[in-house]
């Protein structure tokens, strides 16, 4: 136990998760990395310890195993000051259109699991009277597009959950941040055609998450350009939007 603040990163093996963990460790937080394979997270925990002389640990967490959530939260050695969910699954839209199992996994990974676990932490934080919850959602949740609406609709649900949670929790001293990264060069987007000026590297997202927590920002578009892009996309009449091929 230390006197430092602590952060729990759910989805700690993702590129954005690693970047967020580094940003918080650099700022002096102790870090717990959580993911399906805790042993695989150990090299990242060692990296944080070596770099920043803070404490870093790993936890096993499976976003699809909702029955384990109560036990997961109760079993943590310390209730963190900040919890971040970076969990997401892009999946393959074409498969999800006909394969219900695939569609269900996408919806559960992006909406059900992240919402339920962050909701549980919100209860604990409200009981304590402080804490910050960060949900990494997506600009894809701002409007359902033909090319990825299964993923997008799940993110939309997650965004709405965070919005409501924020309104409720803010009265109890708990802050909720919604992050919409836009295009990020990561494992998830490798091989995709990304638009250069709208694309950032994972460390930029990590730094943006830390800044949002420290400044108590509500909704973060990592690149300001995305706020404008999504404003335009959201404003298009449905009759026009449905003809667009993206």
């Amino acid at each position, binding site marked *: 136990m230390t006197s430092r603040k602590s952060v729990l990163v759910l989805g700690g093996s993702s590129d954005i998760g690693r970047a967020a963990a580094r940003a918080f460790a650099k700022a002096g937080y102790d870090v717990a990395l959580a993911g399906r394979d805790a042993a695989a997270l150990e090299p990242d925990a060692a990296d944080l310890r*070596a*770099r920043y002389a803070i404490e870093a640990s790993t936890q096993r967490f499976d976003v699809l195993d909702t029955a384990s959530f109560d036990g997961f939260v109760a079993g943590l050695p310390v209730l963190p000051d900040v919890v971040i969910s970076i969990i997401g699954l892009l999946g393959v839209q074409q498969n999800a259109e006909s394969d219900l199992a695939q569609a269900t996994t996408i919806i559960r990974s992006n909406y059900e699991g992240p919402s339920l676990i962050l909701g549980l932490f919100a209860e604990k934080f409200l009981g304590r009277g402080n804490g910050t919850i960060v949900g990494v959602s997506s600009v894809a949740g701002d409007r359902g597009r033909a090319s990825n609406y299964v993923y997008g609709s799940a993110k939309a649900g997650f965004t709405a959950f965070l919005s409501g949670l924020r309104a409720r929790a803010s009265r109890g001293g708990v802050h909720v941040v919604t992050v919409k990264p836009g295009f990020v060069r990561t494992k998830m987007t490798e091989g995709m055609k990304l638009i250069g000026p709208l694309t950032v590297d994972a460390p930029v997202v990590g730094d943006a998450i830390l800044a949002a927590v420290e400044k108590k920002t509500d909704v973060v578009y990592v690149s300001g350009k995305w706020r404008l892009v999504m404003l335009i996309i959201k404003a298009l009449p449905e009759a026009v939007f449905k003809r667009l091929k993206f």
Partner: protein
Amino acid sequence: MTLVSGWGRFPVVDSEVLRPRSFEAVGEAVVTGSVARGNGRAYGDAAIGSARTIAMTGFDRVRSFDPATGCIRLEAGVLLSDLIATFGPRGFLPFVVPGTRFVSVGGAIAADVHGKNHHGEGGFGRYVDSILLRTGQGKTIEISREQNSDAFFATVGGMGLTGVILEATMRLRSVETGWIRERVISASDLDAAMRALEASCSATYSVAWIDCVARGRDLGRSLIYLGEHARIDELADGDDRFPAGNNPGLAVPIDLPSMTLNRYSIRAFNELYYRMGARRAGGDHVVSLYPYFFPLDSIKDWNRIYGRRGFLQHQCVIPEAGARDVLGDILDRVSKRGDASFLAVLKKLGHGDGLLSFPLPGYTLALDFPVKGDILNFLDEIDRLVVAAGGRLYLAKDARQSRATFEAGYPALSRFNAIRKSLDPAGNIRSKLSQRLFDEV
């Protein structure tokens, strides 16, 4: 396939780029014609696989660090910029940094990069204690001066041709601050510049910027930058112990037309630069390590200034004895052409450590030229002067030297080839550079 080039953007060639996520995946990625690539700052064709290029920057973890000794174990894709930003504030810096901090540890070992302290403190490889190497034969071995020492000395400076560097253990330098106490000396010609470098051998860091457009009486006029790590009591009030990293502010957003750099614009730039520097000559002043070590890092994508066709950096080293005459001859020819640009650097080097390490005791001169006209023929002429003087060219910068020039400059080549063969009998590790200069055809 993807079009790949080095920092000089010449040549541009096809190679399949793979980005493995685990060391096992690195092993699986190695097929005949593979080489590892770090941050792509080798200028020519060193980090391009003849068939497949294995991108290593995803391996960016520090495995362990001991603040009592400065000993660090890290993955090969960690960038020096990352090391400096992370460990600088804790009082540790790499012992050796090249002219850009945006290089990977693996790349720095493979090129055995040198810095402004090579004359006294040696190159990057001198501070590397051991390396985890995935050989072309598929073995993963730990190599050091004591264990598999042949492989170690072939890998330091071996341009990635002994296998894929996965991890390394090295020592960091303990520093009080991230600032440098700098002294600028102005030298009116080449003799004065070489005398000043010779006289400042005891300085930790020394380098000369040469105005390679100046001719006649002014031939070789230079500004010499000496540096020492500043102590805490030398900092101005209000300075942080470690300066903030200046992320590139300026950027070159497009390829400038190749006519942007011509003898008039370069002459004007150099005149201004020399005069401003000369005005600072004399007393000591304290500067951030970033502009001192990495002046060009503050301009993002500065390689685009040379236009779409790219540029060549010619970096040679001439043994001490004949250096004055040969350097004078080279500078005379270059100044008559007038198209070598502002990055002309003269520096004293000491012994290299690896079999193919570039440095040898003498003077190194680095010149940039846009790729156009008869530049390739001109550089061949310069190479003949270098070879005649017993000198050699830096493989990390090279994109065009001939086999004859290379073989003349690197007498340990046959020894290197034998070690490479024993580590990779099937010849799986091949880069565009090795095809050009090493491999049997």
